[in-house]
């Protein structure tokens, strides 16, 4: 096996339980995004554009769809003879198997994989961020500073600092202080969960960390603080541009809306940084005589007969006559019946929405489908459901099961 200067390890194992019904049977990185993508496409495309062709995807939660989606890696140019993409599940060693305990443990368990490629650097990435980033620049920065670990950071609003790992740096960019989700932040430079490590040193720390029984085997909580304690060179790399952790239903919706702004806050049509994906095999979309589409994204295989505004419509969606879709994110192969009105609603894959349904328009005190994961007056309808004609779905609902009796309210 030939050498790779840098191996990328993508942490794609998390369940992403804050995405509710969307991740019941799906790993978070495989959740659809932006009309024809899955969340992991962004990280994979970044790897492709950065010339990183040896990629491990660490996964243990419902990897089936992710596994078949990634396949041989062809869509991302990662079906390589040397290197390429590998889905890395936990496995059984001599006698026993163990599941990944934390982010650091997941890498620890795959030391033999990384060693096969004998890399200088290891790039640790997350499979659930939406951004475009040239990792070569970050690696160059890592080399220049002579760092042992480099952490990508970006400024976040001060009021959100408590959700992030916050860093203070000296003039040279060296990290002098690292606070995990601080109550009293020293800066607003937040870690993006993107790390470059010298592989040799990281390996030592991983082995050390594994021996500590009290460790939660996490990069942010254990590995980085340990490195800081030992005075290793930990540097920050300032990233400029769009970056979003789509960990909640609202942030997933927000990120989708960001591609619609004019000019887009996040531009998918950049020809120099295409986002690769497994393209659906479908004809161009059809827009009928009666249709009206404004400020929206539509893709292949759609048939639009209704009114669409400010929405992201994925492949294979049909929107019947008289339907009014506003501020929505519709996942692939959804069918929306005549006269149905959806607002601020995310609809999961393959769901059939009947006629005359109203969703996300009205509130109710007495909403049995209210769910604390769904905020900001949104509605989330799961995948593979059938919603009967004339149902009303109130704001802040999560619909997990089909409604089979027409005219009901949920």
């Amino acid at each position, binding site marked *: 096996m030939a050498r790779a200067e840098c191996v990328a390890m993508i942490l794609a194992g998390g369940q992403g339980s804050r995405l509710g019904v969307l991740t019941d049977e799906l790993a978070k990185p495989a959740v659809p995004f932006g009309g024809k993508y899955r969340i992991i496409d962004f990280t994979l495309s970044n790897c492709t554009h950065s010339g990183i062709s040896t990629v491990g995807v660490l996964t243990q939660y419902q990897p089936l769809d992710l596994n078949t989606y990634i396949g041989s890696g062809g869509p991302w140019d990662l079906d390589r003879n040397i290197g390429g993409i590998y889905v890395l599940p936990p496995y059984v060693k001599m006698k026993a198997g163990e599941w990944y305990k934390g982010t650091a443990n997941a890498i620890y368990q795959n030391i033999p994989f990384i060693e096969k490629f004998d890399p200088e650097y290891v790039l640790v990435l997350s499979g659930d961020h939406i951004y475009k980033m040239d990792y070569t620049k970050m690696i160059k920065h890592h080399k220049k500073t002579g760092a042992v670990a480099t952490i990508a950071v970006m400024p976040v609003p001060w009021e959100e600092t408590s959700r992030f790992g916050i860093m203070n740096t000296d003039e040279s960019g060296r990290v002098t202080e690292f606070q995990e989700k601080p109550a009293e932040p020293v800066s607003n430079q937040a870690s993006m969960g993107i790390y470059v490590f010298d592989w040799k040193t990281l390996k030592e720390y991983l082995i050390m960390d594994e021996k500590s029984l009290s460790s939660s085997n996490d990069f942010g909580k254990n590995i980085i603080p340990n490195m800081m304690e030992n005075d290793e060179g930990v540097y920050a790399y300032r990233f400029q541009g769009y970056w979003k952790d789509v960990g909640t239903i609202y942030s997933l919706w927000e990120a989708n809306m960001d591609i619609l702004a004019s000019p887009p806050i996040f531009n998918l*049509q950049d020809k120099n940084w295409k986002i690769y994906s497994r393209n659906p095999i479908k004809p161009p979309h059809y827009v009928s005589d009666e249709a009206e*589409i404004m400020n*929206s994204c*539509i893709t292949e295989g759609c048939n639009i007969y209704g009114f669409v505004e400010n929405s992201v419509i994925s492949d294979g969606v049909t929107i019947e006559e008289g339907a009014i879709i506003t501020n929505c994110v519709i996942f692939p192969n959804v069918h929306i019946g005549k006269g149905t009105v959806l607002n601020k609603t995310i609809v999961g894959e393959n769901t059939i929405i009947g006629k005359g349904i109203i969703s996300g328009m009205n509130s109710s005190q007495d909403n049995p489908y209210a769910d604390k994961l769904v905020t900001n007056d949104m509605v989330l309808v799961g995948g593979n459901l059938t919603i009967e004609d004339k149902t009303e779905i109130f704001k802040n609902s999560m619909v997990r099961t089909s409604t089979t009796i027409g005219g009901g309210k949920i």
Partner: protein
Amino acid sequence: MIDTMGIILTDDIHINSLTDKRSISALPFAGRYRLIDFVLSSMVNAGIINVGVILKQNYSSLMDHLGSGKEWDLNRKSGGLHILPPNIARNIHGIGEGSVELIASARGYLSKSKQKYVILSKGNIVLNIDFDNVMEFHIENNADITMVYYEEDSYKEAITNHTFLSVNDDNRVTDIEVRPRRPKTNKVFLNVMLIDKGYLQYLIDEAMARGEQDLVKDILMKRTSRTNICGYKFEGHVGDIDSIQSYYDNNMRMLNANIRKEIFNSSRPIYTKIKDQAPTRYSSDASVNNCLIADGCVIEGQVKNSIIFRGVHIGKKARVSNSIVMQDSIIQTGCELDYMVMDKEVTVRENGRLIGDIRHPIIISKGEIV
């Protein structure tokens, strides 16, 4: 149909500047396809894993489109997609004239292939045919050769370029007329046939030895009595493209939901080269009616009854109607297009106005800046 191989003969029909630098089989169609995609996908969907494409001139756009065959799942260790480079240089039309020499030039490939049957087809027909049915018919009728035809009454009126079959109640082809003034039947040969590979090789060798040129006229026509040539009636949609008018009309037919549903049948998908375009963006000012629109476009103006290919930009206040706009063309602010065919990478500058006629759509050549 792992026992069947495909051979696609790319035609030499000339349609204005559209085929100046590409074979007609490479003609862009329906927003994201090339004509060859239809018959090639039909072959692949029937489980054929060995397809030879016999090229003549202008093959580089077709080579670029087909690549390694990956998109059609034809990048195989054995079999797969074979691009057979040109060996001869005369004009060849359909699988008739000159086809003997063309097929003979692929003799080496034919004999190396392990399949028992060959489906021979031209590359410029829009259809989605289930070749399994043709094979079943072929075997049931114990045919030596099965010629696929469709019924089309309107051709009777016009002078046509087509070949007509007479087929009796036993499905037997009793007569073949090539470009008749007044065809006896309404059965138009699709230029698709199924034949035993060994028999095809024998027929081609015989014809070459006698200096015969034309598979249909010199070989099949003479053999209707001696050989069991059967006619299989294809009932699906057929778009036979051999003129600017048929090119335009057949594109526009794709706006019909029923035809689209049949051609883009999800259980037998039409594959094409992947371009990784983002979804199309509609601005707040967009107004689109009765259009087929591919990915990667930005629509800021008004578009009606048109086919818009990948990566097209329609500027603000532009009005495009009854037109075909190919890949990466830019229609700037305030332009007006009606009954136009814009080839790839055309730019129409601000307030440009180009109007064709329904009976005479106007073509703007690739890369032109108007």
